[in-house]
């Protein structure tokens, strides 16, 4: 058996694997080595390190940042369901096919155009500061309410487009099959199209909700002390940017697992489809 073809193949594969691991190790060591050796040689490294990578400040501020991040999570948790519902409603508006529902369709189009077209931060300013001024009294003028609404309106426009693409991806024959059984339009949607459409766009929506999680931070511009504002407060007090690095770390800890998982779901779906 020593020189059988099977053995040749296995030996070859083993050698290939060994070679690849060697290359991987060497190149990784080289790249990181270069980063760790070269950057500290820069004349301003000490200053940058003090300003951006100050361990002491990181340790001191991290717990508070983490606490502030709870507010991000809370805002996220009440916005996400609202966004999903509103997004779905608007997607259904845009999908309206009967000519009598044309105004709904137009409404959906205008809505998504406006809220996808303006930077989130402007919407947050305009709604977060504008609506309360219409004469609402506490607690109804809270920036939490109106800031959240700004996020909900903006993101539901994106989510609506995702739902719509999901609805359109359900093959026309599925609708035809359901209709040909005599089911009314609402049942066709509810039992046949939506269950399939929603399942398909879960990964895309997860990516959207990662983006939302990051944009919750924009609420800080109208008052709420969430993680970005808290980092900003520390930055001002300590004249040091390390708290931002701390915030970045916290964000990565949340967003990487979710994006990875969404990517995994998308890849699985693509495999299943082909």
């Amino acid at each position, binding site marked *: 058996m020593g020189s059988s073809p099977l053995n040749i193949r296995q030996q070859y594969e083993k050698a290939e694997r060994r070679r690849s691991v060697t290359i991987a190790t060497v190149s990784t060591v080289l790249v990181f080595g270069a980063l760790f050796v070269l950057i500290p040689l820069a004349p301003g490294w000490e*200053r940058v390190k003090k*300003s951006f990578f100050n361990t002491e400040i990181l340790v001191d501020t991290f717990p508070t940042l983490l606490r502030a991040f709870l507010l991000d999570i809370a805002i996220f948790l009440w916005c996400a369901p609202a966004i999903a519902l509103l997004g779905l409603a608007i997607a259904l508006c845009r999908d309206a096919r009967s000519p009598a529902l044309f105004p709904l369709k137009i409404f959906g189009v205008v809505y998504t155009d406006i809220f996808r077209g303006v930077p989130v931060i402007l919407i947050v*300013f305009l709604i977060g*500061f*504008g609506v*309360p*001024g*219409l*004469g*609402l*009294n*506490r607690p109804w*003028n809270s*920036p939490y309410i109106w800031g959240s609404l700004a996020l909900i309106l903006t993101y539901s426009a994106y989510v609506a487009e995702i739902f719509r693409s999901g609805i359109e991806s359900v093959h026309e024959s599925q609708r035809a099959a359901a209709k040909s059984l005599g089911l009314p339009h609402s049942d066709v949607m509810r039992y046949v199209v939506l269950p399939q459409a929603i399942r398909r766009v879960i990964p895309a929506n997860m990516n959207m909700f990662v983006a939302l999680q990051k944009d919750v931070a924009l609420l800080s*511009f*109208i*008052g709420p*002390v969430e993680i970005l*504002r808290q980092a*900003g*407060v520390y*930055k*001002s*007090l300590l*004249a040091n*940017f390390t708290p931002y690095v701390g915030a970045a770390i916290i964000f990565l800890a949340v967003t990487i697992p979710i994006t990875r998982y969404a990517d995994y779901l998308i890849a699985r779906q693509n495999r299943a489809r082909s």
Partner: protein
Amino acid sequence: AQAADAECAVGKTLTEGKLTIATGNPAYFPWVMDNDPASGKGFEAAVAYALAEEMGFAADAVVWTSASFDQSIQPGAKDFDFNLQQFSITEEREKVVDFSVPYYSAAMAVLVRQGTKDAGATATLESLKGLKWGADANTTALPMVQSIIQPDSDPLLYDDNTNVVEAMKANQIDAALFDLPTALYLGAVVLDDGVVLGQFPADRAESPDQFGLLMEEGNALKTCIDAALTTLADNGTLAAIEAEWLQQTTGVPVIK
């Protein structure tokens, strides 16, 4: 006089019997020490308590809250009786909000790093023109830079003092304009090698920079506050607080 003033504020505050005062988050040295206005330490914190007392509120009737400039100029109900945060009084702002009579007249000062000074920058308009300028976009420093110094290249703008200073550290800008106490503080503490190059005197004829308390437009409390502030100015209390908390400003050359 005390009694009359005290009655003046009755029924006009946000919460009956309390005086709600807003400041920034964070509040900066030397206006408020350690970001803790309730300690009464720092120029604005001390002014706030003196004013409260003058208006008939005990120290424990003072409630602190925080509000940014944007939150203060948003239309609609405010969450504070007044906001003191080095707001400069300007004509345009007066159209949207109310200001009290001034409680401080700020000299504006030029902050640079030692390297810039070594390279030959001097306290003359001629020399300042050639520098790369930065400023806090939310303050009146920007119009001053543009109207008085008229630099050769457009200034870069930032959201707060710290970002301005960071841009200086990164050598992206040479000079920035702050009110004098802030400039002295940033130059001495935040920048390792900061130098206050010169100042524009507070009592200059055109566009003096004066800080006032900011209130919702038409706030009934305004007359009470103005009266109390005038009393504090007249009886020397304000000057005493200024002497206690703000550094000596002599020795900074006047820009020609």
